[in-house]
């Protein structure tokens, strides 16, 4: 004990060097200029006269419509991502098949491709005027482009990889030992999935879904192209922000933007809480 205390005295805790302080300062300035300042200005604009701007924005039925549309789209996209994200992840980790690498690469495509390109590609296929299926679908009474289905498709396209990329490494790390053990103990395929696989990946799955929810709320490029951005009909919250700003209705733009930021922050808080729970369970 005496040895330990004298050792602490003779070699004091590592001091932060001047270099480290410089690096910290650079990071702080960078974050301030890039994130903190713009966000602060946005909030100041939105709350310039208290809650007035927000309440005024919410009183506008077009704004409410945009917010509701964004909410519905995000919830639908997350539900679809849950099913397909799980399916694709299981396919990629647990099965070997021809073209597996191509599939894995395709899943990553939305992360690297510009959302505007995604929107355009969807239009080329589903546009009721010149798309491949569009006219046929329209005759069958199904509207895809310039309507909610198109918006949901575009949103799913850009947010699916977030679920798959969260789940795949955890599923790989989990291995199939436990699944085989469950099989040998008499569990069928569905029981094994529900009792063994799903609990093993639940936090990764929820984490991926929350990230994809945040992404869905904020999607702009693909949705703008595919939706036709008709205010009050197919404009989502992000599209409404841009359109309000273009029309010099800056206050409304601020108000919707702040609501979007708050929703995203909420998602990140949920993710942070999940992370600590996950870590505690593993420890």
């Amino acid at each position: 004990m005496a040895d330990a205390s004298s050792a602490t005295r003779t070699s004091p805790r590592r001091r932060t060097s001047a270099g480290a302080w410089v690096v910290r300062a650079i990071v702080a300035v960078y974050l301030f200029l890039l994130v903190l300042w713009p966000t602060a200005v946005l909030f100041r604009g939105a709350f310039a006269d208290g809650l007035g701007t927000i309440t005024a924005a919410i009183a506008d039925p077009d704004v409410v419509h945009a917010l509701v549309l964004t909410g519905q789209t995000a919830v639908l996209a997350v539900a679809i991502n849950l099913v397909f994200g799980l399916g694709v992840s299981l396919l990629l980790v647990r099965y070997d098949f021809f073209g597996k690498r191509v599939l894995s690469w395709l899943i990553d495509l939305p992360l690297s491709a510009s959302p505007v390109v995604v929107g355009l590609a969807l239009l080329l296929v589903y546009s009721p005027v010149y798309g491949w299926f569009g006219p046929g679908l329209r005759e069958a009474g199904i509207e895809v482009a310039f309507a909610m289905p198109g918006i949901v498709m575009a949103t799913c396209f850009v947010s699916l990889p977030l679920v798959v990329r969260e789940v795949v490494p955890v599923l790989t790390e989990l291995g199939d030992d436990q699944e085989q053990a469950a099989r040998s103990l008499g569990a069928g395929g569905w029981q094994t999935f529900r009792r063994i696989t799903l609990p093993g990946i639940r936090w990764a799955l929820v984490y991926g879904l929350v990230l994809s929810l945040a992404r869905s709320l904020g999607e702009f490029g693909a949705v703008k192209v595919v939706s036709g951005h008709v205010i009050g009909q197919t404009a989502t919250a992000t599209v409404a922000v841009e359109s309000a700003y273009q029309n010099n209705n800056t206050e409304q733009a601020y108000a919707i933007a702040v609501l979007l930021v708050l929703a995203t922050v909420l998602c990140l808080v949920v993710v942070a809480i999940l992370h600590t729970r996950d870590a505690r369970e593993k420890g």
Partner: protein
Amino acid sequence: MSIEVSQVSKRFGDFTALDDVSVSLPSGKLTALLGPSGGGKSTLLRIIAGLEHADAGTVRIEGTDATHLPPQRRNVGFVFQHYAVFRHMTVAKNVAFGLEIRRRSHAPWTAASRAERARIAERVDELLHLVHLDPFASRLPSQLSGGQRQRLALARALAVDPAVLLLDEPFGALDAKVRKELREWLRRLHDDVHVTTVFVTHDQEEALEVADEIVVINEGRIEQVGSPDQLYDSPANDFVMGFLGDVTTLGGRRVRPHDIELLTTPTRVDAVEGTISRVLRIGFEVRLTVLTDVGEVVTVELTRAQATGLGLREGATVFLAHDEPAHRRILQPV
């Protein structure tokens, strides 16, 4: 015969894991599948369990053709090398898993359901007691040691009263001391429970110590089947002899180093003269390297007491002779 494997072959790409293997594993006995890594023993075990499918051949378990049955319908318990315990479940829940899966579905509020739950809880207690894990029932597997996890995996496999218990290198991931304890414990457990048990190992000492019967597998083929004594004393070929214990050559014959009789005077006419070139002490035994007059390098193993009694040191002249093991046993009962 409890498990009948006939003409089973399995290939992984270019690699032949099993080549037309036929073997019968006896009921109620503890059988070891012994062989070097990559020899096909684990593949054979996994084919018996249904975790792997044979390219050709059939597997019968307790008289039923199991070749095309999925693992959950074969009534086998499987214990994995790396335990494969369910990480998100407590020790008790792990053991109860197989029972819960088989549970007849009753509405949760009925008396039948309550009776069923009580029955499962009782069986879990019984099994945890059997594997000495009763104080850990409500812990998570991450709070257990390696040896405890393996005992948990064993209790979990036993819970469903399997017709056959299959263990894939059950002690491979444990350190030497725990491994020794656990295999003695497995032997005692088997004497209590008497379930037909097959375990895979590459450790000949483990197989010799624990098993009633040993199946030696190498390069996808069965080399020999027999009791530990049969295999050790009359190996069918050089591979089995070399795999089951140390081998040296004396007078052109392959013999066990500890079967060589070492004399300091030529009291036997068939003894070969030689000089000790090296003396190596390993714990309680002494390993000598002897260079014979005919130019053979022979390894001889003695106990420390024997070596001290004979006053052996490097450079000394000695005489080596060898008797057939069966002979030896009659002359010097162990």
